């Protein structure tokens, strides 16, 4: 018997990354802008997305959504009220979505008929940071009820995101939310990150978010 060292240098998430790469190509070929929404549970992803889908629809834009949860299709039902095609992905206890799940759930959709695809990830600020879902933009949400230091506690996910959205701004005063501290903490782990202040309830900041979507689409997708 002989002992030998074999150099490998292979990414542990190579398989997922490769599926995500192919998925991104496929989505781009259809001219879709894909957003991956990540946050802790209860930060308001579904309400934010529901309002987004409604507003896009009112403006004649087409969008679809995939929503990941460990169990139940409650979120998909809520989002469907916005009149957009929605599919629930149940992860059966898994704490994050993977690129293959996205690919599988897109199989019977005519992707060419949508302009925007939203993926609502499983509420979790740890695991989803490692998994590329083929998205163009990763959006991290932080609600005013969570505390200003969340970005410092979960630097990986905030650093891996492209845009930060502060949600439930209508509750900021009641929660004595220190907006300045929250934004400082976000930028401490991701210098220069764009931060939006929103309320899905009052609609505050939602116009700016839609403008941001349109700008991202223009910048990233060849077919507009």
């Amino acid at each position: 018997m002989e002992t030998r060292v074999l150099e490998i240098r292979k990414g542990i998430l190579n398989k997922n990354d490769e599926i995500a790469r192919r998925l991104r190509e496929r989505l781009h070929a259809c001219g879709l802008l894909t957003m991956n929404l990540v946050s802790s549970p209860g930060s308001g992803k579904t309400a934010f997305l529901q309002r987004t889908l409604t507003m896009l629809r009112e403006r004649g834009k087409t969008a679809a959504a995939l929503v990941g949860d460990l169990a139940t299709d409650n979120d998909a039902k809520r989002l469907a009220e916005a009149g957009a095609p929605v599919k629930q992905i149940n992860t059966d206890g898994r704490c994050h979505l993977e690129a293959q799940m996205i690919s599988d759930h897109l199989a019977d959709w005519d992707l060419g008929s949508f302009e925007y695809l939203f993926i609502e990830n499983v509420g979790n600020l740890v695991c989803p940071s490692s998994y590329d879902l083929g998205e163009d933009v990763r959006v991290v949400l932080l609600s005013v009820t969570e505390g200003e230091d969340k970005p410092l506690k979960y630097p990986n996910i905030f650093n891996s995101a492209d845009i930060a959205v502060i949600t439930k701004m209508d509750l900021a005063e009641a929660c004595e939310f220190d907006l300045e501290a929250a934004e400082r903490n976000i930028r401490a782990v991701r210098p220069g990150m764009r931060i939006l202040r929103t309320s899905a309830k009052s609609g505050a900041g939602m116009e700016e978010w839609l403008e941001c979507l349109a700008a991202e689409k223009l910048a990233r997708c060849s077919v507009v």
Partner: protein
Amino acid sequence: MHELSIAYSVVEIATQSAVEAGAVRVKEVHVRLGALSGVVRGALEFSYDIACAGTMLEGSRLVVRELPARVYCAVCEREVELASVQYFCCPVCDTPSGDLRQGRELDVEAIEVDLPGEEHGNAGAGDTQGNSEQE
């Protein structure tokens, strides 16, 4: 906690390379873990033995090399190591920098395997690429 599925991927990658090289057993697996990889070392080490059970990696040792986060500082014009991942500023001049150069690594660097003795004895001497290149 996604470390168990990460551990299964490590076992899959190591097994594939070991089989391709004609190995009979994997003794050690060397993994690189960046400070921003999103993987917790302790949880990965805990999951590793579970994932190895019943495979050619059973009883093998996981060697983790942790890599700190490094960014490029445009003011100092060089790569610098962050003092903490809670503060993306150059430790020398305090300028913010999001230009990450190291810290997301999550890969299998190398494995140490047992190969059956070969009569022609050409394996080993300086060749660390496995025999896939020769085929």
